[in-house]
């Protein structure tokens, strides 16, 4: 008698471990009508409340149950950021499946590798582009995939693959299952073990194929506690909360955006605004005016370059005022850098003067007017760029972490910022720098449990005493802050035996708005050289102003005037470095680098091996 009752009853979840799905359900119960998500559709930011969100998640979770997904099995998402991404992800968490995300730019071969490696059973592919990458593969390429769920039906309706299923139909199955089996999802949630794997996050794989890092519920909890909710992070200690607005635009399959958006929503409840696409980020930023903003260096560099270009196009009077404003900004930036990110009386007065004239409107245009906390991470950023934004009065902090430690390592905290460093280790975590190799190692509750299907690789990632090897070389600054030198395997040892960190030089060059990618070369060579790729729009605009005609990317990059321009940037950078670290020669990369062609990783990092292979002649020509 009791057993039959159990099968339809919704169990009490108050004692269950609070997974992200549990928390989404909790928000729905506590604040059902609060807006949780906005997505721009047909020109309007369509809102979804917490109760609607949980309703979708629950239905999707039931649909997954209807397809027989069991705890520990893998679901996968191949999509741009959109609410369905989160719904599918949270639903997977609810039924204790393992959800993994793919980058929208992942080419077909990589998709086949990743889905095969993860053994995904239920695959979410946004639109025809992503569906093609699965459907066009040989028939037996994905033996595990049962269904492919798509949300953008354009071009897919005509396909005959029996695995394809439209999102609405998928949800309809969920509704039927939900009616027939009420409480089925909640019963799974009640039994969750905090050490269960919640997600696989694939590393971008600058060397070798991507590896799936297994993160558990406990990892996520510790990551959120440290990275999002450290009390010293925010000015005045006011942490993230329901009044905050965020823009979700970076790939959600990356640990940073998952943490800052998805898990942040579950734990702290800010409103997530989904950008229309990565191309419209600047326009979306202006509309959303987020209060908390995370960006990768590439985005900061773009905003930085965009400001300078647009200011140049101003009328004479506007240029006059903005020149004055920028000067004030330089002063404020310098002063704040010298004072750990704090305002002094002088810089505060300068800011007050500049605010009504320049800073307020400029910050409004770039969408950071209401921003009370901004951060940069996931790659190294040039200090000049951060200083520029500090000069505009924006509180911007660099932080450091990686997938394998759920992004928990170091962060700059309010009032204790040291520019050029990635900040201090979080309170109560283990972080050390190996004396021999200089490698940064971490040990805390957010260290991952291992790579999916790769016990040997997992063993290699940990030291014998259980510390996680990050693969980054770091040094202590003033005994408190950590400065990243480079990836261990990227360090250049010249033929003269000098150790040189290329990324510092590269970032210094990339601070110029004209340069998009740089790869410094010199391992085993007499001197350093660089391969440089220009920022097409900016240099194009520059050439237009000087009436320099050009046809293609390659043509533009090889114009003598452009070479002279880049030489100027290189010379300016060289002045900042010791003689041995100076770039003696450079050559222009003749094409725009692309993930599809294998020169970049999904996170837009340059794959050194692929580059030297592809542009070998170019490299040799600089040494002959």
């Amino acid at each position, binding site marked *: 008698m009791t057993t039959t009752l159990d099968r339809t009853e919704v169990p009490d979840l108050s004692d269950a471990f609070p997974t992200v799905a549990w928390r989404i359900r909790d928000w729905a119960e506590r604040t059902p009508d609060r807006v949780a998500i906005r997505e721009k559709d047909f020109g309007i*930011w369509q809102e979804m409340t917490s109760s609607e969100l949980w309703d979708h998640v629950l239905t999707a979770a039931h649909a997954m149950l209807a397809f027989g997904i069991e705890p520990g099995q893998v679901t996968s998402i191949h999509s741009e950021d959109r609410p369905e991404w989160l719904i599918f992800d949270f639903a997977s968490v609810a039924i204790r499946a393992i959800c993994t995300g793919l980058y929208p730019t992942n080419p077909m071969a990589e998709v086949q590798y990743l889905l095969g490696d993860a053994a995904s059973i239920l695959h979410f592919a946004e639109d025809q582009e992503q569906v093609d990458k699965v459907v066009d593969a040989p028939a037996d390429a994905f033996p595990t995939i049962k269904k492919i769920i798509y949300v953008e039906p354009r071009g897919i309706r005509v396909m005959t693959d029996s695995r394809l299923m439209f999102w609405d139909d998928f949800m309809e199955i969920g509704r039927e299952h939900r009616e027939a089996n009420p409480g089925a999802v909640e019963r799974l949630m009640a039994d969750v073990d905090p050490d269960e794997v919640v997600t696989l996050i694939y590393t971008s794989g600058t060397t070798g194929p991507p590896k799936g890092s297994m993160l558990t519920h406990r990892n996520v909890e510790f990551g959120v506690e440290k990275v999002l909710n450290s009390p010293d992070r925010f000015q005045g200690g006011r942490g993230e909360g329901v009044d905050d607005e965020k823009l979700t635009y970076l790939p959600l399959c990356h640990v940073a955006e998952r943490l800052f958006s998805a898990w942040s929503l579950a734990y702290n409840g800010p409103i997530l605004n989904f950008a229309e696409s990565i191309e419209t980020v600047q326009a979306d930023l202006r509309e959303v005016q987020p209060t908390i903003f995370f960006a990768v260096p590439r985005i900061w560099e773009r905003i930085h370059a965009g400001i300078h270009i647009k200011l140049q196009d101003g009328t004479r009077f506007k240029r006059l005022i903005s020149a004055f404003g920028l000067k004030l900004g330089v002063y404020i930036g310098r002063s704040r850098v010298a004072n750990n990110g704090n305002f002094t009386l002088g810089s505060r007065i300068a800011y007050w003067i500049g605010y009504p004239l320049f800073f307020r409107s400029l910050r409004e245009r770039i969408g950071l007017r209401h921003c009370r906390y901004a951060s940069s991470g996931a790659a190294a950023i040039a200090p000049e760029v951060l200083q520029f934004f500090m000069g505009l009065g924006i509180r911007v902090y660099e932080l450091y972490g990686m997938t394998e430690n759920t992004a928990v390592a170091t962060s700059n905290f309010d009032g204790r910022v040291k520019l050029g460093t990635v900040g201090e280790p979080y309170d109560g975590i283990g972080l050390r720098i190996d004396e021999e190799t200089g490698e940064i190692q971490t040990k805390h509750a957010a260290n991952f449990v291992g790579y999916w299907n790769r016990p040997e690789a997992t063993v290699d990632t940990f030291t014998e005493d259980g510390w996680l090897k990050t693969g980054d070389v770091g040094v202590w600054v003033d005994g408190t802050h950590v400065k990243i030198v480079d990836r261990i395997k990227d360090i250049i040892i010249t033929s003269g035996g000098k150790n040189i960190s290329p990324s510092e030089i590269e970032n210094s060059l990339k601070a110029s708005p004209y340069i998009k990618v740089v790869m410094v070369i010199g391992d085993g060579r007499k001197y350093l050289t660089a391969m440089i790729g220009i920022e097409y729009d900016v240099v194009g605009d520059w050439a237009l102003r000087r009436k320099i005609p050009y046809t293609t990317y390659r043509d533009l990059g090889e114009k003598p005037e452009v070479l002279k321009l880049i030489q100027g940037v290189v010379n300016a950078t060289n002045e900042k470095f010791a003689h041995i670290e100076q770039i003696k020669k450079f050559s222009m990369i003749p094409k725009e680098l692309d993930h599809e062609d294998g020169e970049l990783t999904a996170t837009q990092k340059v794959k050194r091996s692929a580059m030297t292979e592809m542009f070998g002649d170019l490299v040799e020509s600089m040494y002959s």
Partner: protein
Amino acid sequence: MRGRPNLHTKYQFEMGLFPSTTKRVSLVLLGVLALLLPLSALPLFGFLGDAGWMVMINRALIYAIAALGLNLLIGVAGQISLGHAFFMAVGAYTAVVLGGESGRTVWGLGLPMWIWLPAAGVAAALVGIFIAPTAVRVRGLYLAFVTLGLVFVGQFLWRNLGVIAGGPTTGRPWPKLEFALWKGMDPIVSFATDGPLWWWLTPIDWLPWVQIEEMSRHAKTYFFVLFLVIVFGLIAKNLMRTRVGRSWAAIRDRDIAAEVMGVAEAKGKTQAFAISSFYAGLAGAILASVVGRIIPESWNLFFSIEFVVIVLIGGAGTVAGVLMGTFFVVMMPRLVEEATHWLATQVTESGPFAWLGNVIIRSSPDDYLGIVSLEAAGPGLSIFQLNVVLFGVLIIVFLIVEPLGLYGIWIKVRNYWKGWPFTY
């Protein structure tokens, strides 16, 4: 969304009549100024409450109603019309037949204002509906010719229908702006005589710097017409965002394409003519009533063109622009006159701008340098002629340099600051 004006979560925010706080605040401010104006209570601009200025301001407001109507037709629906004076005349004569006193040679029913005023609009609208089918058949220049013909047909009619229009050189008296319940009864509110506007609204002593014992008829007319301008301005602004207004815009931009998309062209054009004519008829009736006596010759082509000028200079397709245009066009002759007289005194008193006066004003038949003469019979242009010339020049300048009119200038100024510190 507070602090996030561009974060639209509903279409209604984007469609709002006055979507931004700035707009709402400035509208309220404008409203306060408009209320203080006739009481001579505006700081620095108190003189605007004088009878001379009030007459002109009232005229501008009445013109504004007609211009709002023409703007719907030309600016929104894209139908060129030179016949606006004709529709105004239809309204005015409907008013006088219904509301005027009958005499030996003229018809008049002596009905109260609440009948003749709406009827003036309706009658003009009916004529508009009658004319509309031609607009479906012809467009552009040819439509302009057809409507131009209306003006001449009208003038012929008014000259010859003495029973309606009165004598060709004398016209006939129009009913006053008085609100009475029925004919022969005492008016409840009279906008045409000095005294209290309403039994409790006078004397005005609730503003410390204003002391008015009784309100002038000009001020009372002003309030009445201002009320109508606000109502019809809002109606026009609202029309533009409704299904009707958007179908007009579609017809304006390309009538064939609109019809292909399912916008009923004939219906849209008929609606545009009807509503535009309603505005014209109403304005015509009020104008005639305020002026008191109008001869048939007044409803001529130049009168029509004046409204086209208002719409073009103000900014076709915008309510705010039309209001700006109206005041500009109505006030300009006065300003030109003032300026010319001021220059003349500069010449006689050898002021710092005497040289300019010497260039512009023709003081004697031998003065070949001057353009404008102050004496009506003197050589050169009269001030009236100068105004006509200036209108012509202004239309040309605006069409070439600033097709969006005064409103376009405002937009440019606004965008300059809107983009700050960027340009785009």
